[in-house]
């Protein structure tokens, strides 16, 4: 009886291992195909259109060694992180005030909604006129793209902080300030983080556009420079770093989300 059960379990485990390995093989094969096509395509295409994949790998190595890539990445990341930090602080604050004070919501809600729906990159030309050529317009455009998901999510969080969290505190005679600090602030953290998760991707778009069209610095600047001189092997290097930065930062936010609000995870597991 028990041995047959053990057998069945072992069989099941083996089957699961097989499926896992097979899936991994398919995924690896699928992505390897892309690089293979890139390599072969690059060999038969004029270099001004596409260089073989191994040239990009070499370019990556060369740009890393001479420090170009590091400088550009540091430059871009500092703009991005500054923009995201400003967005989190002011986005959370505005969302909190909008959710808590109806009149404040009436005042600024229409503008927040309008700007969220507007392609705010359209403001870049005027921002670069106003804020000069340094980091100013870049940070501003990152904020203009990144802040709205945070405001909206925080607002939604404050609105959904239900009676279930407010009633006990009111019953124990919490003051308005205590409710804000001890109930609403911790309750909205997961919502702020969910907003930030959306903001990372939008912020990177803002960053790249800023680097394209104001002073050409950072990864976006490198990209434009290589593109305009047809250095196709080098051109992919900043693109790869940007994809990695987007993926890395988003994963970091998810990790932070799980650390700061472990209860949300369980709630999702239980389908609540």
């Amino acid at each position, binding site marked *: 009886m028990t041995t047959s059960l053990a057998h069945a379990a072992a069989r099941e485990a083996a089957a699961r291992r097989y499926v896992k390995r097979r899936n991994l093989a398919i995924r690896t094969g699928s992505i390897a195909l892309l690089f293979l096509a890139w390599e072969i395509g690059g060999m038969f295409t004029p270099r001004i259109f596409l260089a073989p994949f191994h040239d990009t790998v070499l370019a990556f190595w060369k740009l890393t060694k001479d420090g170009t890539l590091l400088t550009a990445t540091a430059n871009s990341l500092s703009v991005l992180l500054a923009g995201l930090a400003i967005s989190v602080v002011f986005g959370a604050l505005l969302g909190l005030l909008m959710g808590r004070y109806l009149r404040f919501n*009436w005042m600024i809600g229409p503008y927040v909604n309008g700007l*969220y729906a507007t*392609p705010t990159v359209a403001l870049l030309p005027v921002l670069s006129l106003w804020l000069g050529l340094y980091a100013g317009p870049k940070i501003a455009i990152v904020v203009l793209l990144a802040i709205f998901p945070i405001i909206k999510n925080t607002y939604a969080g404050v609105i959904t902080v239900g009676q279930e969290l407010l009633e006990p505190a009111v019953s124990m005679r919490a003051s308005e300030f205590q409710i804000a600090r001890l109930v609403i602030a911790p309750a909205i953290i997961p919502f702020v983080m969910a907003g930030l998760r959306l903001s990372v991707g939008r912020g990177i778009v803002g960053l790249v556009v800023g680097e*394209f069209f104001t002073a050409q610095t950072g990864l976006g600047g490198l990209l434009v420079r290589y593109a305009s001189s047809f250095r*196709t092997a080098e051109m992919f290097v900043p693109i790869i770093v940007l994809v990695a930065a987007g993926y890395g930062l988003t994963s970091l936010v998810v990790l932070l989300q799980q650390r700061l609000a472990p209860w949300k995870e369980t709630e999702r597991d239980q389908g609540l």
Partner: protein
Amino acid sequence: MTAIDDIALQAERARIRRTKIDRVLIVVCTFIGFLAVWEIAGRLSNPLFFAPVSDVVREFWLSLLDPRGRLLNGLVETLSVLVPGFVIASVLGVALGVLMGRSNLGFQILDPYVTIFYNTPRVALIPLLLLWIGVGDPLKIVIVILAAIFPVSVNTMVGIRDVSAQFTEPARSMNATESQLLRKVILPATFPYVVAGIKLGLGRALTTVIVAEFFVSVSGLGGILQATSSSYQMAKMFAPVIILAAMGVAIDGLLTYLERSVLRRYRS
């Protein structure tokens, strides 16, 4: 007893009425204040950097009245790539999403690509595509597709995977075929997700097409923005911004309405 109820009811009615009036007053006053600050700041500042709202409105109105003017032409140019690009992206995106949601093989093959492209800032591909496709409408259409397809496909996939057994079990027990299950149960149940994906995708497409027009800078609303700002025509520069904001808000409002009316039926 009825007297108390009646007084309370009157008080409640009055309270709701007051709230409504308050809301209108606050919204209108804030808007007037906003315009006033813009006007005064515009008059006080250097005309090379900022324009009062009255000038902006006048310029806007004049360019709307001129049927051969740049603004309307630009709008038509932008829409003529946005609409076809977006239709293609939606159809392909849903197909891709269904493939990934229903077939493990499809998922394993496509998922690495979707993960990469979902995390790629779309605008970073513009210089590359310029090189490959050259300046012109095909470039912009490809860019719109690249910007919009992934939100649609990812949402469709997630929606399909989330379809609850509450929906599929009755159909299965009534001997639905695989294709019936997909057409009659799974896709309708996934519809709200698809609408949400389309909303996200359209927003991204709009942003990306403007950036592409910044690059090419001869056509479309983005081109007008580039041209007017580099020649310091502040009042003219705000016209495309207003149109883009209106477009964004209109698209968003329409899809939000669709989302809500669909969701209402799905709740029950």
